[in-house]
């Protein structure tokens, strides 16, 4: 947590009484006001963030993320810790107010964090508690680690959500399909940290086809090869999905007689062979190579914190920007956090998941 953030904690479980939770929070506000002396405490609240966790690791990550978000997203954060098989009280809640010193003045701006621990059947209370504790008139985002399952809890939470924020980076083979399915609902949009994480790389890839390279080669491609780490297949497919969406590729046909995944993809007046090799030792996407039917080649390779672009001119290297998770969440909550291009890329990526 940033050094200019001051934390006020209730320190005791306040049960499932929503009014008690609100009272406890109000008490923290008074405490913050008292310590602020001559200046009043101002509240800024731009989002309700509902963060779901089912394991200690997910809870720890959710807490870390919530702490990091204090400085960047004024919000009421509800951390829902769901432990189906744990023993103890069915539902407990803890409240924390995070106060931030204002630049140039003594004023404080607070965000609030309510952790609700649900054990056993206590999980059934999570949707109603969530609905009761949301700050009115501001949007709600549900941050879900992994793939949201087919479950009433998911449906009820998403019913009050304006945005679902997921991270498809390490999803399994059916994960992208489920995310696409959830994104097709009209009530909320999906922001995908994996997609936003690849934004700087997509800009570099796009830039590789700026002048003096003839961008027309993108319509003459005969082969696209992508090497990635074994745990980055979903991101790799999202990247290929983006290319397919932008270049109007047709429905892919899987090539069966290969060790690594591969597809023949129709394009205008021809086909593109798309290879995906998930054996790279470099994290994430290691290499993306383009070859046209006229022999033109462009290759983008990851090396340390840089990307090297080899194309028409001399090779050049640009820094590879990596954004921290909190910055990605901020982007996912923003107006550009969910865009049509993502939906199109996701659809193409799902086609690669399950080729005809």
């Amino acid at each position, binding site marked *: 947590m940033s050094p200019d953030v001051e934390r006020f904690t209730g320190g005791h479980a306040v049960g499932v009484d929503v009014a008690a939770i609100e009272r406890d929070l109000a008490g923290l506000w008074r405490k913050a006001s008292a310590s602020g002396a001559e200046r009043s405490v*101002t509240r*800024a609240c731009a989002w309700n963030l509902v963060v779901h966790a089912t394991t200690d690791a997910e809870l720890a990550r959710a807490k870390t993320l919530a702490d990091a978000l204090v*400085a960047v997203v*004024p919000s009421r954060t509800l951390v829902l810790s769901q432990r189906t098989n744990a023993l103890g009280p069915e539902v407990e809640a803890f409240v924390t107010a995070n106060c931030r010193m204002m630049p140039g003045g003594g004023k404080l701006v607070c965000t609030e964090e309510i952790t609700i621990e649900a054990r056993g059947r206590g999980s059934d209370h999570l949707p109603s508690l969530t609905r009761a504790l949301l700050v009115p008139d501001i949007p709600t985002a549900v941050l879900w680690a992994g793939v949201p399952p087919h479950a009433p809890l998911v449906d009820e939470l998403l019913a009050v959500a304006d945005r679902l924020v997921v991270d498809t980076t390490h999803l399994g083979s059916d994960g992208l399909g489920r995310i696409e399915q959830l994104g097709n609902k009209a009530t909320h949009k999906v922001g995908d940290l994996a997609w936003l994480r690849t934004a700087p790389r997509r800009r570099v*890839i796009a830039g590789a086809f700026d002048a003096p390279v003839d*961008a027309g080669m993108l319509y003459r491609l005969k082969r696209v090869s992508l090497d990635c780490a074994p745990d980055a297949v979903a991101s790799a497919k999202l990247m290929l999905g983006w290319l397919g969406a*932008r270049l109007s590729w047709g429905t892919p046909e899987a090539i069966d007689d290969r060790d690594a995944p591969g597809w023949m993809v129709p394009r205008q007046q021809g086909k593109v062979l798309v290879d995906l090799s998930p054996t790279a030792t470099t994290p994430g996407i290691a290499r993306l190579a383009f070859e046209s039917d006229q022999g033109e080649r462009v290759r983008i390779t990851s090396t340390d914190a840089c990307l090297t672009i080899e194309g028409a001119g001399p090779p050049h290297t640009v820094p590879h920007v990596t954004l921290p998770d909190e*910055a990605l969440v901020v982007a996912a909550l923003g107006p*550009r956090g969910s865009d049509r291009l993502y939906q199109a890329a996701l659809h193409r990526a799902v086609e690669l998941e399950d080729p005809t």
Partner: protein
Amino acid sequence: MTDANPLRQGLVDERLPEPCTLVIFGASGDLTKRKLVPALYTLAAERLLPSSFCIVGFARKDVSDAAFREEMKAACEKFARHRPLDPNVWDSFAQKLFFQVGDYDEAKSYQALKARLAALDQERGIPGNRVFYLSTPPSTFPVAVRRLGEAGLVDKEKGKPFRRVIIEKPFGTDLSTAQALNAEVLGVLDESSVYRIDHYLGKETVQNLMVLRFANGLFEPLWNNRYVDHVQITGAEALGIEGRGGYFEQAGILRDMVQNHLFQVLAITAMEPPVSTHADDLRDEKVKVLKALRPIPEGRVDEFVVRGQYRAGTVAGRRQVSYQEEPGVVPGSKRETYVALKLFIDNWRWAGVPFYLRSAKAMPKKVTEVALVFREAPLRLFGERARTVGQAPNVLAIRIQPDEGVSLRFGAKVPGNTMEIQPVNMEFRYGTSFGQEPPEAYERLLLDCMLGDQALFTRGDEVEASWRFISRIHQAWESSSADIDTYEAGTWGPAEADRLLLRAGHQWRRP
């Protein structure tokens, strides 16, 4: 070329300019080091510059590319928004920096520049797009533009490759010099290629003024003479003239701040909703406000304008010498370091509403804000006592700098058994409500120019309209033998400025 790149389309998080070269005239100057190159570095760090891009510094002092890069690195380390510098970003950015020695009024310097730019185009795959930034003394603007035209580096063509010229303030020193400069510039360039920069327009809160007004249903219905009692616009500097006596003796605060920055803020505050956010639609509305400013009647300037000059004093615990003691100031000078104006906008929306503008050096603190002071409730329902203990008019204050934000003052009942009313502020602060820093004004403006968006740049007729009003005040002062009011440094100005408002039953806010 970029337009044809299908992968560029749909990248939602950027507005990426076409490959181009930015030539900075006055590359050895302070603005280049403090603002321009640090802003460009930040744009590079945020991946907002095109892949094929060059910056060419152009100045009289001959330095090598390597020395220029070192100098700019030191400047970025000190002034860039993203610090410390990212070594990878810097290495890549430094490769785009070049230096070309030249004299602003020497034709052969422009031929050499032309050859250098052609070579860079070839080497970097830049299709001839160029932006020339005139960060030089104002006296060099006409000759620089003329020479650029003679060398074929700019012309009146509107097509591609684009050739744009950014001109720093001041754009003229009065109406006639502004008109002459406009004529000179537009003799060589089309208006669509001229970017008169006023960095206030690049400030996030100035743009937010438009959003506040036109993206919300709440405020605009109240934004008129029916509900607004008066408007106060303040542009205060805590610093004195900081040794710039030579410059300030020529300029004064009216030229330095009011004609450009404060009038732009005034225009955006008072303008009608534009039909679109397209540059000319926006500028059409701004210029209408400036044209609607009621001329100050001849011989009555003192009723509408107060000027002052600071005496020695203390500003935020720091000793400030008087203006008269500043180096470069002519003894007995009557040059104003404080000005307050009472203006009226003679149009349907603002008829009868005073707009009070003030700007000064050596004020208690640095602050720029617009405050709309609303009319009081029609009936004092809670009696005289409630009023005296704290009932006050509602004020919507838009803070432009520092701590950008918006606050709304309203009366609230103090908890207890009595009917006490206390003004409270509802505040929105940029710094805490969004998880990101607003960009520096120059970042936004440089990017907009490269993208060909003139919305945040002033048009020739705007500049002339503001000078038309300001020049009349200067003429009146020049023909007046009256002494200038003085004020102690570190205070909010001369007493006469308070009386300017008191005559209408108003008083200055203490921002």
